């Protein structure tokens, strides 16, 4: 808890998520990221005079899905409003958004924070269109506008001020992102801007009922950035309060590189958005049948899956929460678990070597999944069985894994090709053991005199001589037998 001795922190988050529909919310242009500037535009998303918006119904299904996933009630009526303000990336001079009748409201999200579950209430989820992007050219006194992003469907998810600390904010974002990924409705890539987060934060003396004056933080580009910005803000507000000062209601801009925020505009300078119903889009009834059919497409969500992993697979808390974080990883785990009945071993491999290989190879690639490693569940299971049968050691398995990724061969093929099987032939092993015993007279003597550590050394020597192909367990037993202390 970052909450200081004297003050309680209250945080609410506004998350903007780009929905990954193929076309934009009010026209047929592509939403693909990274295209040449102004190539994915038309009169509608450029806001040209006379052009009119037409609502993309696919967006509605996506939005309803999210609304239901965060336990909101879905509005019976779909209505858009205009939010009026001037900015060069907003070609119509207004953003089509939802004001008094959000698509979804009154929900809640259960997060896992500090090892316990906590409910964060969701105020509302509403649809709007994204704006374009300004490009500032070094050394020029003007900026350029790229309208490609204009009209990308955006979902705003607003939480109640139920979050008590920066860590909780981080955990909330992690949970929300996991849910959105499970639903398959967004890339949730903060660097590319497909997930953005603004935070409202206030401090109040412990025991005080009414909330303190809040500030709004913008421009955080990572979850870590959100956490850092909130931590900075707590310190800043506390200092002011301690000095007997007053918090000014304002919007502050986070500078990640500098590790601090600065005032962007005060409440007095806040915009009057002059919301009014969008006359170019006719309100329509949200079909109950549609809501029902969307509900059926919602998969088991991470929090539920976590519970099930604990109870069904008896996984440790940490492994379960790591695995459920990502739907593909969890799916992969479950596929393996149907083939191999020691789930905790699978979990160890996944959270250990497999995820570390994944991070090594795919850390910079968006939308890569664990399946992209190319280790089929049956191959992983085959490898685990080879260990069980004593055909290979765990150490060899660790060496085989990268081979499997590189060559796409099965573990059996790799073991055969490289002669990595464990030496199970006792005669062959006996020869090697005898060699080790005869050339290590001192440790043998030590062991016989009761020095247990000497045994481990000798086992190591055997492993070295066999290039790891011996079973340490068998070597251990045979050594003891030979040195007369069974």
């Amino acid at each position: 808890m970052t909450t200081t001795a004297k003050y309680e922190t209250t945080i609410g988050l506004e998350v903007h998520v780009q929905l990954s529909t193929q076309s934009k919310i009010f026209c047929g242009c592509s939403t693909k990221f990274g295209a040449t500037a102004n190539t994915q535009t038309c009169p509608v998303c450029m806001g040209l005079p006379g052009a009119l918006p037409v609502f993309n119904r696919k967006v509605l299904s996506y939005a309803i899905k999210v609304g239901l996933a965060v336990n909101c009630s879905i509005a019976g009526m779909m209505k858009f409003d205009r939010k009026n303000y001037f900015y060069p990336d907003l070609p119509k001079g207004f953003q089509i958004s939802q004001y008094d009748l959000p698509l979804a409201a009154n929900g809640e999200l259960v997060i896992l924070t500090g090892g316990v579950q906590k409910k964060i209430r969701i105020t509302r989820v509403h649809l709007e269109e994204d704006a374009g992007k300004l490009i500032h050219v070094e050394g020029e006194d003007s900026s350029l506008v790229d309208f490609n992003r204009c009209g990308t469907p955006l979902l705003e998810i607003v939480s109640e001020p139920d979050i008590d600390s920066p860590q909780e904010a981080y955990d909330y974002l992690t949970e929300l992102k996991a849910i959105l990924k499970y639903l398959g409705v967004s890339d949730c890539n903060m660097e590319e801007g497909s997930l953005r987060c603004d935070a409202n934060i206030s401090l109040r003396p412990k025991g005080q009922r009414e909330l303190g004056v809040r500030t709004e933080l913008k421009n955080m580009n990572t979850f870590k950035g959100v956490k850092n910005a909130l931590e900075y803000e707590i310190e800043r507000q506390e200092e002011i309060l301690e000095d007997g000062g007053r918090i000014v209601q304002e919007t502050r801009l986070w500078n990640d590189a500098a590790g601090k925020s600065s005032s962007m505009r005060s409440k007095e300078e806040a915009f009057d958005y002059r919301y009014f119903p969008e006359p170019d889009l006719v309100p329509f009834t949200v079909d109950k049948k549609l809501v029902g059919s969307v509900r059926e497409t919602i998969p088991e969500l991470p929090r539920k899956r976590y519970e099930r992993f604990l109870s069904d697979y008896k996984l440790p808390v940490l492994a379960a929460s790591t695995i459920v974080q990502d739907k593909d990883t969890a799916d992969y785990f479950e596929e393996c678990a149907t083939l191999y009945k020691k789930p905790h071993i699978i979990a160890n491999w996944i959270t250990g070597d497999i995820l570390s290989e994944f991070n090594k190879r795919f850390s910079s690639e968006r939308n890569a999944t664990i399946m992209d490693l190319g280790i089929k569940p049956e191959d992983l299971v085959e490898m685990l069985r080879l260990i069980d049968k004593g055909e290979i050691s765990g150490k060899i398995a660790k060496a085989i894994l990268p081979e499997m990724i590189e060559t796409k061969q099965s573990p059996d093929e790799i073991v055969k090709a490289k002669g990595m099987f464990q030496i199970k032939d006792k005669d062959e092993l006996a020869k090697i053991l005898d060699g080790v015993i005869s050339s290590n007279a001192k440790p043998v003597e030590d062991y016989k005199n009761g020095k247990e550590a000497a045994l481990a050394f000798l086992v190591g020597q055997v492993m070295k001589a066999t290039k790891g192909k011996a079973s340490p367990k068998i070597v251990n037993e045979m050594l003891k037998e030979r040195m007369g202390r069974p």
Partner: protein
Amino acid sequence: MPNDLYKLTAYEIRELIKKRDVSPEEAASSFSDRIGRIDDKVNAFISYDKENIKEELKRIKGKEAGALYGVPVAVKDNICVEGRLTTCGSKILEGFKPPYNATVIENLRREGAIVIGRANMDEFAFGSSCETSCYGPTRNPWDLERIPGGSSGGAAASVAAGEAAISLGSDTGGSIRQPAALCGVVGMKPTYGRVSRYGLIAFASSLDQIGPFARDMRDCALLLNVISSYDPKDSTSVDRKVPDYTNALVNDIKGVRIGIPKEYFIEGIDAQVKDSVSSAIKLLEKLGAKVDEVSLPHTDHAVSTYYIIGPAEASSNLARFDGVQYGLRAKGPLLDMYKDTRAAGFGDEAKRRIILGTYVLSSGYYDAYYLKALKVRTKMREDFEKAFESFDCIVTPTSPTPAFKIGERVDDPLSMYLSDIFTIPANLTGIPGVSIPCGFAETDLPIGLQILARPFNEEMLIRVGYTFQENSAFHKKRPRL
């Protein structure tokens, strides 16, 4: 040697071309010569050039079967035509050439019509006199010292003066019907949603509707046939079968129930207008209609409601004219660029409406103005629904006065706003309305009769209008020019 095809109706021209008595080139040159001869005086057009007409003539090759094949049409300058200047009568759209066609333009071209020129208008359709255009006022062909009405003044005047056979205007509070009345032509505002607004540069999205100007009811029906369509690109357009409106050209109104709203015969209405309209109603009664008084109790609030909703939507619709993408752009850092562009680009009336609209939408005022206006709008809709339970149509004067002098009301916005008092309710309620010539004031100024009907009952307007026309001769009289 100028031919006088320009004196004919669209239907007559179409028939001559069909019989191959006349070529589209001949028809086009008759009108373009006429424009060349008189438009210096009338100023019905903002842009018009012979090169464009040549292109249009090439474009219609192969469209011989089209309903308007070879018919020259004037198009109000707020309807987008691909690659052609589209100005809305405003400096702020300087040099703007839309990269796409309005749906009505696609419809016109599909039927072989020729866009002969771009008609003058009040800036962004803000006005009732066609005086706020940055390209100078259009003059009434009946009296060049007078206004043609507005905002579609150029479209009305061009048809009245024989510079176009038919034309397209837009009507937000009477902008087709009022200039039609003042110029002595037929002008119809179809039901909201009947004609696609895609490509119409919006004034007030919930009120705007494109509609036809014509010299008689037949041409009006012909043009309505062509421009009416369900358009998936306009969410407010209605997916409803388009009937053949020429089937409603029936000279028979026996038994048609006509309501005369008592609230419309107000004080301040010109005596000659009152007389002409009364005579027209008598004629309709004589032709077999059942005429009775009807009440539309919320009529009093129409103008104030309109001047809240219209400017509110306009203030938002016009926000896009910010100098960033197209049109006029002032130099300087962002905020100065915005301010200077809009200060230089918009005329006084546009600024007045933007300020008015911004004010009524501001937080703290929204409920008192905009929300209340929406409620009144609902009340007015109920008034009409009730009236149409007992009546097939409602007949009123179109404008309280005939055309006034240029400059007479420029400095008196309120009296200017009141010239739309009878036409505004149809926009607020979405119902269709038409203005037809029904008489002349002493000084030879046309007077219009407005007919209103239920939503999507344009056929009733056509039937009543056609019957009146077939039993009178007001529509045949042309200005001396």
